């Protein structure tokens, strides 16, 4: 096995190079398919599986229980409605509060009966009501507003920092791909959408742009005076930058994904449904997709947006002229050391 350090060296010198930029048509096609599929999944499945926090649900209150074990209430609900994720809490002494997704009248009666027998209380000690969403339309509206404001300001910030709006555009396109595919994959998992999942989703937005900025900063360095150089074309410089930061991208993805994977594993296999599983699934998908999106979408997109600028077209011509000239004059072994892109 080639050691990772050697791998890094070869990427740095350009000895080993992956064609992220020149094969962009393939990546863009894959991304377009992924985006379309991700949009179709929730549509085919009839929307996202929204949880109690978004849609409201049914609430049972059991008073005067002898045993305040929340497991009893959970079982009583899941016996009647398999797959439900009831939330059971103990209120003031010996009253239990059980909340679950909205139940039909029939189910409500059955759950009520189950609670009476399981907790061993009298019939009039169980009451049921319905509750509204804790994550109402106003929360969603404010979150969306925040999201839009963030994306706009981040676009400005990047355009200002990198001194080119094209980097902002490329980064935002990469971000959109991440958002849509993460949402689509989450919908495909059929996990309930909970506030935790939304929070995981928002974390991914920030992570995705963060990852893109790190790679773009290297691109900025590499292409700072590409117009005066005949070493590589603009697209080749961008590709080299992505290759040179590839070790960073892999290491960062691994370091970010390892804790998340451990939370996901414990959340999904040991605890079942809940905050940890929802949040870590969104993060797990998002971190991996973000890393890929920066490398395969955002960076090639930036190269593509700029390589047709007249100055850069002229520069690319000079590069090929120099290469042709060198080939003609210098046929000695090991004469040129170019990077094939």
């Amino acid at each position: 096995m080639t050691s990772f350090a050697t791998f890094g060296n070869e990427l740095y010198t350009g000895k080993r190079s992956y064609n992220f930029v020149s094969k962009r048509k393939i990546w863009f096609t894959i991304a377009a398919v992924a985006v379309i599929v991700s949009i179709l999944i929730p549509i085919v499945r009839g929307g996202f599986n929204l949880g109690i926090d978004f849609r409201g649900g049914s609430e049972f209150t059991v008073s005067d229980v002898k045993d305040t074990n929340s497991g009893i209430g959970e079982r009583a609900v899941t016996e009647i409605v398999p797959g439900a994720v009831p939330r059971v809490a103990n209120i003031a002494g010996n009253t239990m509060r059980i909340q679950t997704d909205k139940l039909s009248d029939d189910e409500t009666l059955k759950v009520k009966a189950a609670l009476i027998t399981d907790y061993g209380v009298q019939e009039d000690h169980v009451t049921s009501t319905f509750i509204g969403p804790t994550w109402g339309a106003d929360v969603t509206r404010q979150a969306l507003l925040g999201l839009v404001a963030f994306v706009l300001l981040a676009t400005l910030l990047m355009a200002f920092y990198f001194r080119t709006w094209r980097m902002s555009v490329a980064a935002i396109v990469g971000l959109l791909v991440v958002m849509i595919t993460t949402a689509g994959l989450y919908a495909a998992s059929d996990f309930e959408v909970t506030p935790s999942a939304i929070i995981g989703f928002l974390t991914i937005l920030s992570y995705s742009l963060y990852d893109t900025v790190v790679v773009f900063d290297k691109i900025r360095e590499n292409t700072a005076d590409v117009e005066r150089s005949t070493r590589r074309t603009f697209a080749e410089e961008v590709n080299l930058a992505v290759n040179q930061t590839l070790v960073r991208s892999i290491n960062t993805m691994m370091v970010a994904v390892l804790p998340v994977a451990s939370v996901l594993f414990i959340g999904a296999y040991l605890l079942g449904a809940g905050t940890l599983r929802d949040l870590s699934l969104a993060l797990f998908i998002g971190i991996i997709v973000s890393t890929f999106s920066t490398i395969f979408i955002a960076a090639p997109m930036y190269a593509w947006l700029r390589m047709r600028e007249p100055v850069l077209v002229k520069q690319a011509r000079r590069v090929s002229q120099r290469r042709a000239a060198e080939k003609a004059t210098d046929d000695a072994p090991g004469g040129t050391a170019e990077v094939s892109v």
Partner: protein
Amino acid sequence: MARTGPTSTARRTLLWLGIIFIALAMLLGSGAIWGSASWAPKLALDLEGGTQMILTPKVQGGQSITDEQLNQAVSIIRQRVDGSGVSESEISTQSGRNVIVSMPGTPTAETRELIKASADMSFRPVITAGPGAATTPDKMLPDAQLPVPKAAPTNASDENWIDAALYKTFETTSCVPPVTEVPTNTDPAKPVVSCELDSGTKYILGPVEVPGKDISDATYGLQQGAQGATTNQWSVNLKFNGEGATKFREVTSRLNGFLQANPQDPRAQFAIVLDGRVISAPVSQAVIADGNSSITGNFTEASSKSLADKLKFGALPISFDIQSEEQISATLGGQQLEMGLLAGVIGLLLVVVYSLFQYRALGFVTIFSLVVAGALTYLAIAILGWTQNYRLSLAGVAGLIVAIGQTADSFIVYFERIRDELRDGRGLVAAVENGWRRAKRTVLASKAVNLLAAVVLYFVAVGNVRGFAFTLGLTAIADLIVVFMFTHPTLQLLARTRFFGEGHHFSGLDPKRLGAVPLYRWAGRFRDPVQISLGARGAAKGKNSGAQAEAERRQTIAERRLAARQEQMAGSRGAGSASAGSQDAAKENK
């Protein structure tokens, strides 16, 4: 020892970090001893439980509350609760009629007031005023003498608003104990009878001239006196929006006219009405044109703050009563937190193993940096729990676990830049300085994105999202502090040790493993690589000699060797490793 060298700067920076730590620990410690702080972070509703309050709307008779009113109430209560800290309360409706508020801990009297009071404020002109006690039956005006409007009222201060029924109410109302109940849902277009309880005065007030929704912001503070000196009186300062400011100017100029004509005219007063009660009825001494007004009444610091907090987020469509208030247990079992923490520990161990595998001894710098970042975050969370009521939910715990990855990335970016510099043939000390200069920009730019996300979401979003934004911002700041004040100074010092400086095989910075150019073979001593590459490039491509130094430094090894060979330097073909390297590179040409 030189006082300005990198070594002493590095030592000083580490010392400052130590001071920050001690200061934070002392702050928290003194808070724990003398205040209400605790060494453990506060936990949120899902992990610790709290109080559940069921609020029922105060409506008369069989009146019902519409869905719209209920949702509006939930939204405003949420903003008010959010405005008082980052505690991630849950607010929801029950049976389409009640509002349930669940919050961690035990709510104080102020919090209760905050969530149930309508805070419907309006400004009405005074038409007439009188002593607070109800008029005794023998003093009441006989029916024949009751006022009858002579014409339609022309403005809100017009005495023609008073009709017989209104005057009767005025007579029977008592503003001293036993106080007459305030009618709810008064019509803003009609005059009312209202009490000022502090002074025991009752008023007949004209229709609402400036409604509470025209208040754009409310703050509280000590009243400024005429000479600009601060008095001892607490006040609530209001700022009106454009519409409110215009109306306020019209009203104050009319009322000021009454004052100019007759200093004793009650109509020179305007009443500030809150939830049906007059909280103050100042005389309009001047025309207020700038849309800023301040209310003084019988305020304490706490009551002025509480009123300002309520006014800021608007009035509830209806007042509420707290029907029940009960302790509620955590909705997530202790198992969830334990498992979450276990997952965090496992994840951290995996990161440790991966870092050591990737960066060898340098991995320890990552691990120690993460420990420092963790300790800093812990202190910050505990302190903010005390001062801002910041509470950690399970989602927050998971967010912190994720932050491990983003924090470690700063080190990875930095280490990779150092390795790049080493590959270019620099000595470790120079590589650390140069690598840092370039990594610093990247780290700052990328953390700026995280901070932006945190700040925007914190100020715009509500509820859980706000708590999340807080955690995100907190970890980004902790990360920056650690990279600048721990990781970099530590590396500066380590670069001067033999183990790292000489590139020990296990240091993670072994130039041979990194394929660095062995400059010393053909130059006898270490040479500044910038000089060499400049010379080589200059000779090879004269037309580019003006290119920036940074661009020159970015030459690949193969290129530099090529340039060197073209310069026909003695022994350039003979140097085994150099030639092998360039031939490998050449083979890659396709």
